[in-house]
């Protein structure tokens, strides 16, 4: 393994360890025992088959939003709007699931297509604004987040009202990503076929980015838009395509959240998985397989925090704190890398002497 790859791996590992250490420090400062905290956190996420299933189900929407953010990053775009895209995509898929009565495979297929199209549409406009009018995508996707928020806020009670004013009807069994055989395999967890979709999406993204002309063009625009244009790549089109793919991924994430992990759609909340997707993409170094690993790691923390909170007096927000700290260390990893380089050079000069 080359030194560069090795250094990258070590830096990543050190980042995670530093984040966990910071979490321990916070627990200690607040007067809790970090060892028992982590013991219950990880047991809560991995103790038995059911909890592993729940962890994977928690990770599923994160895989999608992580892929979405990472994909846009590759083209030099910062997709802060994954939350709105997954909300709108998930809402449209839920609408289809609640309206049409088809066989399960046909209905799920229709919902998947709807989620992808709706998510892509919700991201295509900011992409087009960026390409055509130079509107910064960070601002436009934030606007689209809030537009999706209010759209769902008004449309759900109007057309799909459930037993509470703040949520939609439960989706029928035929429209749920949960299946009896998978639930039984994982002892009745939330586990659903959304995970299969997510794994397929990871493989698809990896293939697209590494093996196709389109992927090459998208990355080229991300490296240097002007150089890419000079080389004959249509940068504007690449930006729109990249955003649409990112939106489609986030839309699918929305479907796996509302029709797999949950059974209905809540109004008045932007799904937090949208912002967490940024963290997942960063930790995963914007590579599809890295995103998968990072999402599962976050899944462990998120599904374990409830158990930890029940068994100790540590507030569940420690999981978010750890993740946030890891992201900060990832942003400042230059410091670590310099340190590692110095160690490496020192070692080499000693060997040479």
């Amino acid at each position: 393994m080359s030194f560069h790859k090795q250094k990258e791996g070590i830096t990543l590992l050190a980042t995670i360890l530093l984040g966990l250490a910071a979490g321990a420090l916070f627990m200690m400062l607040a007067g809790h025992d970090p060892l028992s905290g982590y013991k219950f956190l990880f047991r809560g996420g991995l103790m038995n088959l059911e909890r592993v299933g729940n962890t994977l189900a928690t990770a599923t929407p994160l895989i999608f939003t992580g892929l979405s953010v990472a994909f846009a990053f590759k083209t030099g775009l910062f997709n802060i709007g994954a939350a709105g895209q997954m909300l709108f995509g998930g809402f449209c898929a839920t609408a289809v699931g609640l309206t049409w009565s088809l066989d399960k495979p046909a209905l799920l297929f229709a919902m998947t297509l709807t989620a992808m199209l709706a998510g892509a549409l919700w991201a295509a406009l900011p992409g087009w604004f960026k390409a055509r009018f130079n509107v910064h995508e960070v601002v436009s996707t934030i606007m689209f987040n809030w537009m999706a928020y209010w759209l769902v806020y008004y449309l759900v009670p109007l057309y799909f009202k459930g037993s509470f004013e703040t949520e939609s009807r439960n989706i029928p069994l035929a429209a749920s990503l949960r299946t009896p055989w998978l639930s039984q395999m994982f002892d009745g967890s939330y586990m659903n076929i959304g995970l299969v979709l997510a794994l397929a999406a990871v493989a698809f993204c990896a293939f697209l980015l590494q093996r196709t002309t389109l992927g090459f063009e998208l990355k080229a625009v991300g490296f240097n838009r002007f150089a890419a244009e000079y080389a004959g790549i249509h940068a504007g089109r690449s930006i729109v395509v990249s955003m649409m793919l990112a939106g489609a991924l986030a839309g699918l994430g929305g479907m796996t959240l509302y029709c797999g992990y949950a059974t209905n759609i809540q109004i008045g909340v932007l799904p937090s998985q949208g912002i967490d997707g940024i963290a997942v993409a960063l930790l995963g170094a914007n590579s599809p397989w890295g995103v998968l690993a990072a999402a599962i790691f976050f899944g462990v923390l998120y599904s374990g925090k409830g158990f930890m909170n029940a068994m100790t007096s540590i507030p569940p927000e420690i999981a978010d704190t750890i993740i946030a700290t890891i992201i900060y260390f990832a942003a400042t990893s230059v410091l670590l890398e310099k340190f590692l380089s110095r160690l490496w050079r020192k070692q080499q000069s000693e060997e040479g002497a």
Partner: protein
Amino acid sequence: MWVVVQQIAPYAVAYTIPLLITALGGLYSERSGVVNIGLEGLMVVGSFAGALTIATLQGTMHGEVLWLGLLAAMAAGALFSFLHAFASISLNANQVISGTAINMIAGALTVFVGRNLTGSGNIQIVGFTRFSVPGLSDVPVVGKLFFTNTYPTTWLVLLILLISYYVLYKTVFGLRLRACGEHPHAADAAGINVYRIRYLAVAISGAMSGLGGAIILTTYSGEFNGTVFGLGFLALAALIFGQWKPLGILGATVFFGFASTVANVAQVSPVLAQIPGLILKIFPYVITLLALVLFSKSSQPPRASGEPFEHGKR
């Protein structure tokens, strides 16, 4: 219609002011060349520090305690912003990523600490009371609109706006700060310490965002609960919408303030109640998008904004 405008004006101003001060803070940072997406998180930190200070002292002190809370919020915001400054100025980290980390840390850490201290993540306080400016509130038209039912913080923020305008455009420090955001290497060649100016600018943005968060707390919200409802991001949009200029920002935030307030109080007014709520709610966002589409092509963000500065690199 006039009556409606009169009725909603105080609410619209109350909503505008924290946005305005936060966007102004962002202006300092971006004008010095550092993109600060962490405004939202810095507001949360300010709101938390303010709530903690006020809730602790409110039993034993009177009057001044709210101002003390605002001061604590500014100090906390400035301190917290050093995390962002260190990453993006000293380490040349990606500023967008660092800002995102700030947002995440602020949201999680404040609630974590709050829970440890109070048991719940919420902290309640008693905020400022509204008052009418003597004399001025009797002036026709304007008096009813802007001088009745105001918060003292409103006047503080307007004062800071005036001072900011003066500082940015009429002082040596302002010139240097803007130079760092346009041509840091030229500024460096002229003997200006780019790092120091940028650190200071980010600290100012932190203090102002912290103040913004604390103003939400001490005026219309009255409780800390770990969020500022996306106002930090909206301030960011107002900064871009306002073309990185103090008066532009004032216009953009007043627009947001009035548009959002209209949407919130539409039910009580027979004229507005006819418009569907959804239209009213998404109206400010759609207009902002339209304005951005119209003006972004010709907009002039600070040229070096988002670019790490390395001493000696050409």
